[in-house]
């Protein structure tokens, strides 16, 4: 009995293995599989939802196909937890055998899922997270960031605060890799005095203690890097505590985009922030993206949505370039690097570390002609700006 049982089991296993082999070889030839691993629950969920929606809109624009091949998108929630995300990434690259991965919002999650993805020689197209590690010493042929390197938007704010003549800045960021990159980026261009610098846990939503430290520090400018729900809470509490009278609040686009504006409203008027993209940018690709995004989802897109959109456009261009021969990794990499598509942010190109060289803009939150509270682009902070870590990258 025991023998036949194990025999039957091994037979079944062999059959299953054979079937999965069959399935594997069939899929690679006739369709493109994309693993969309993003943050779809918790305070960071808004970011992941926008990346996913932007990606899906681009897919719709290209007729549900990349380079003429039908696309299957497998959506998974990383819960903003590195350990859970790593398991899911393993499943996506090993069982589902996806051709591309994208979607991760938070850099601590990115650093956890990077290794299994790169080891399996799957291309990761980052639509958000750009940890300094992957731009510098740990740069990898399979990692492309279509958005920015983490420091970049913060460098642009640092320069803005410096140029506007502020002398004393109080800084606040979440305690995780991108939070450290953020303040490093800000300090690279702000030369005044840092009177207070605090890192809070990524799960912290009550900033009472930090606000009173800021009040005591006597800063004239406050810089926060608090994405999504964190920023919503901070700005409400900042205004509630009456600090907005004495200090000017600055943030990267992450703390002042449509998701935060929708939740906070009026108190955000007049806040300066920086971005590589804005919904009022005047180019054909962007106009189509913004108009269709509003039609499809009934809200203005955020920079996250623009990044998700561009990630899909990049994949589309690369698959078209290699004529669907997705197994030829060298050719795909070359095609990705060429980035032959019209980005919604205007022209950009990849540096040797496969991160963008692009312009960064200053925006301000105002009421537009229709009376909506939203961002307006004021001008360019950096032209053709590269990240600070490219020198450390020895790309093979």
């Amino acid at each position, binding site marked *: 009995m025991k023998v036949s049982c194990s025999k039957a089991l091994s037979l079944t296993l062999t059959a299953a293995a054979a079937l999965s082999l069959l399935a594997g070889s069939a899929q690679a030839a006739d369709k493109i599989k994309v693993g969309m691993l993003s943050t*779809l*629950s*918790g*305070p960071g*969920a*808004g970011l992941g*939802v926008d990346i996913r929606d932007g990606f899906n809109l681009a897919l719709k624009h290209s007729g549900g196909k990349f380079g003429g091949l039908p696309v299957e998108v497998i959506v998974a*929630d990383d819960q903003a937890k590195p350990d859970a995300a790593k398991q899911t990434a393993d499943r996506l690259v090993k069982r589902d055998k996806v051709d591309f991965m994208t979607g991760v919002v938070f850099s601590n999650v990115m650093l956890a899922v990077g290794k299994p993805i790169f080891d399996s020689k799957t291309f990761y197209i980052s639509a958000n997270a750009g940890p300094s590690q992957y731009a510098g010493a740990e740069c990898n042929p399979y990692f492309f960031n279509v958005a920015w390197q983490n420091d970049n938007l913060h460098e642009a704010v640092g320069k803005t605060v410096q140029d506007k003549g502020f002398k004393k800045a109080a800084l606040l960021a979440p*305690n995780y890799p991108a939070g*450290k990159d953020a303040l490093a980026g800000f300090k690279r261009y702000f030369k005044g005095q*840092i009177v207070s*610098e*605090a*890192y*809070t*846990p990524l*799960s912290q*939503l*009550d900033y*009472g*203690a*930090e606000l*009173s*430290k800021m*009040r*005591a520090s*006597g800063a004239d400018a406050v810089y926060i890097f608090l994405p999504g*729900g964190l920023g*919503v*809470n901070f700005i*409400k*509490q900042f*205004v*509630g*505590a*009456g600090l907005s009278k004495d200090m000017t609040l600055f943030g990267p686009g992450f703390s002042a985009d449509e998701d935060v504006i929708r*939740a906070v409203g009026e108190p955000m008027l007049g806040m300066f922030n920086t971005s590589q993209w804005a919904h009022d940018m005047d180019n054909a690709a962007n106009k189509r993206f913004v108009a269709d995004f509003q039609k499809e989802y009934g809200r203005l897109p955020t920079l996250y949505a623009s990044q998700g959109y561009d990630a899909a456009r990049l994949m589309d261009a690369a698959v078209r370039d290699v004529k669907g021969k997705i197994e030829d990794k060298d050719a795909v990499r070359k095609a990705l690097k060429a980035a032959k598509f019209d980005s919604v942010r205007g022209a950009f190109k990849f540096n040797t570390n496969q991160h963008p060289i692009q312009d960064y803009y200053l925006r301000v939150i105002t009421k537009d002609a229709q009376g909506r509270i939203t961002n307006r682009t004021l001008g360019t902070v950096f032209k053709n700006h590269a990240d600070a870590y490219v020198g450390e990258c020895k790309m093979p």
Partner: protein
Amino acid sequence: MTGILVLEQSLNGLQFGLMLFLLAAGLTLVFGIMDMINLAHGSIYMVGAYLIASITAASGSFWLGLGGGVVATAALGAVLELSVLRRLYGRDHLSQVLGTFAILLMSNEAVRMIWGAQPLALNPPAALAGPVELLPGFSYPAYRLFIIAVGLAVALLLYLLVTRTRYGMQVRAGASNREMALAMGVDVRRLFTAVFALGAALCAVAGGLLGPLLAVQVGMGESILILAFVVIVIGGIGSIRGALLGAMLVGGVDTAGRTLIPLLFDQLMGPEAAANAGPALSSILIYVLMAAVLFWKPQGLFPAHG
């Protein structure tokens, strides 16, 4: 400037401590009187916050949301006690932990199914959204002051209820010696349901008041439940007075730790290192406090059992 910092921090600590007290009060009564470990207490807090946020969104009034949500949550607590928890009283602690943990997991998933995975927004009423100038040059958020006022009022009501009423006497009798209270003819079944519903209502008040400061989201109950357990262990299980004092201690230590320790580390070793060591040490501080209390007073500061 430092005077204002200390004052503002004390108010923050008081505000957080009072909210912890609302949670801990229900937990300590259930634990003390029914001898029941209720891990689902945090889930009631979460469901209460969701109900308040939903009613607020539907009616457009925070006050209506708060009132309706608290009543609905109390009813839900009573139903939960009558249908499920009642069966767990006679069991050992392991069964109670497993049973209520199952309720915790189920309510998390149920909330995810009903309301979705994204947090709900709950805004303070417009009248309380701005700052109030307490001293010249020092303004404090009106909403936090409101939380402090409600917390103090609820604490006072609870104190009167427990020390001055017949129900309160039965609750105290149950907490200090359950068998004797039973033998003296206290209707324990009805008392338990009432205590449980009261605990649920307090949870909802805390959830609704903290909602605008934090976020109404799945899993919000777990982190605060751990702190509530620390509070009742410090205060002495079953004791309302202990819960109040424990909550004040934990709230104060948490807030002080979050400001003073990073400040101290900042001066000792620079912001980079302080950023890593400061928050870690300040979150340990609460547990150091608990360990110290357990070392010198193993029964907690105000033990209820005679």
